[in-house]
């Protein structure tokens, strides 16, 4: 059974595709490691845009290398590309349709007061607590403030 399977596998999956030498994969791995170090070192420059590019730009490059060379999507049938692309596209659709409501805290005729409070309180507390342990309080404190703020406001009127 196993043999019959493997034959089918060779015919269809990798018929035209020869077995790569070991060094091919090691080279890819080496490139991935280099990219990885750049992505770790990038933020140390301290410029935000550089961080974003080195972090996410390189993540995309690394991902595409893994997909291409390790998962062998490059020699896979077209249809697989299509349905993976569709899944991914739906996630972008989801993000861009939901972001106007959830990412923004203000829009036409509405304001997300609770989230705005959380942002303000969090930023204020975050500046005061640089320390490792202090960060915890920095995290807890705004939660309470934000929770009480709108209720408090409601009671006031």
């Amino acid at each position, binding site marked *: 059974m196993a043999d019959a399977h493997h034959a089918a596998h060779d015919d269809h999956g990798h018929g035209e595709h020869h077995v790569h030498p070991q060094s091919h994969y090691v080279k890819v791995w080496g490139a991935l490691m280099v990219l990885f170090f750049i992505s770790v070192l990038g933020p140390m420059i301290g410029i935000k845009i550089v961080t974003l590019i080195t972090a996410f730009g390189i993540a995309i490059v690394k991902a595409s290398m893994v997909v291409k060379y390790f998962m062998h999507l490059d020699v896979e049938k077209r249809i697989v590309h299509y*349905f993976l692309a*569709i*899944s991914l596209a*739906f996630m972008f*659709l*989801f993000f861009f*349709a*939901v972001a*106007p*409501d*959830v990412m*923004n805290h203000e*829009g*036409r*005729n*509405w304001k*997300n007061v*609770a*989230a705005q*409070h*959380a*942002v303000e309180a*969090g930023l204020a507390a975050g500046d005061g607590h640089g320390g490792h342990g202090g960060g915890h309080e920095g995290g807890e404190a*705004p*939660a309470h403030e*934000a*929770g009480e703020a709108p209720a408090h406001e409601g009671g006031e009127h």
Partner: protein
Amino acid sequence: MSEAHQIDGHHGHDAHGHHEPTFLEKYIFPLDHKYIGMQYMLTGMVMALFGGFFAYSFRMQLAFPGISVPGFGIVSPTEYNALVTNHGSVMIFWVAMPVLIAAFGNFLIPLMIGADDMVFPKLNRLSYQVFLLSCIVLGISWIVPGGGFGGAWTSYPPLSANGDYSMTPLGSSLWLTAVALEFAAFLIGGINFITTAMNSRAPGMKAKDVPMTVWMICIASIMFMASVGPLIAGAIMLLFDQQLGTGFFDWKRGSDPVLWQHLFWFFGHPEVYVVLLPATGFVAEIITVFARKKLFGYQTILYTAIGTGALSFFVWAHHQFVAGIDPRMANIFTITTVLISIPIAEMMFLYIATLYGGSIRFQTPMLWALGFIFEFLIGGVTGIFLGASGADIYFHDTYFVVAHFHYTFFPIAFIGTFAAATYWFPKMFGRMMNETLGRIHFWGTIIPVNFIFIPLFITGAAGQHRRIYNYNHFPDVSTPDLQTLNIVATVSLVILLCFQTVFLFNFFWSMWRGPKAPANPWKANTLEWQAPSPPPHGNFPPDNMPVVYRGPYEYSVPGREDDYWPQNQPN
């Protein structure tokens, strides 16, 4: 049934070197796709009884507020909410999904594409077992202290996220767990369906030779897979909110309850089409067989199905027009929502056009298929009121919405199922159902259903909102006229439920006592009818698997003596 199975049972088995399976192997832990399909169907039927009983209980409360409902007792507000919530979730997740997709998908896909089984029989069995587990978890959620979850099937936080608000801390977590398990079951099952249909078609069967049912179930499975992910993620997040005290949807910590609505409806709307498409597939098979006609525009119907499926991913926020999303977004979603009427109207037109020039025989399956088209048309056109944002401001969350989606879901989940069950019954059990009882059941269902939901259109238009257990607190909508309409709806529901016993009797009586069915009682073309009734394990003789020569709908071809032409007949 069992004798017939044993007689035919020889073909398939020797090839696999199998011993005769024991009762346990055959019926409780089967690997055979047909038995897994029947397990799904019977489980779905049991769940439908629960769903129907819930509907009966809360409809009685609405028609006769405060009475002790026979068989249930007095319906308290907590119980009312739990009944409404669980009626919705049971009927969609535990009846429509398992019966339409899992039961018929399992039974039909391998038979229709000329394969001996699903590609992964063990995954198939696992899928059913996970599903059964989800049923059990759901059942437990009804009886835990505090009662079943009552936050509506949409389960919007903060009500669902916090036991202090919902007062059913256990019930809501169990309900959510059951839903997540159910999704896992259908993800496993769906991958199996798609892979089977893509890879295991009989030699010679090209894309245009695949029966519409297989296409529809596959498109539905793909849509389910592509849409359910965010909700699985959301269910984990909501479960953490309930049990660990995280704040994913907690406004007090700056997060946003609206996010859940998006996660839910991103799945929830495609889900409607996930259950719709298989039902339209069954209807396509049945109207062609009983009108002895080729499907009018096979390719166009396929494109409309794909178009509907794709477009349904772009319309979800019409459930949220007045739910606090940015009003500017509503305009985009109005456009996409109204445009979805283009492919789905085309599909219905093509089905009706298929009847043109036919030789229509009104047997029970055909009656159900025609009933589907008629009822679904009403459901479809009333949806336009809700998709048009300007009109939805008024109709949102009224009984108009309830009537609308029952006019779509009832044809899908019940009429579609009855059509398929009566049509494929001879293949499933090797016996014929009783035609007279079938007709009595048909008319006893199709007439009351209109008398349930047409009154609800009116009460909704008059301003009665959903999920309210007693209208006494709302003077404008507790008028005697509206109450009369509610009583009409409830009485019709009771009549409808009574007529279902005819079906249950016919189903189980025919299973053992019905006349023996020939292999192809309806003279149909598709491959499942070329196998014996019921098909043995392996479906077709392993040394003589079917080869396909033509499309599935070659009826009444000029120049042929027979008015049908099976797909696997060389000439």
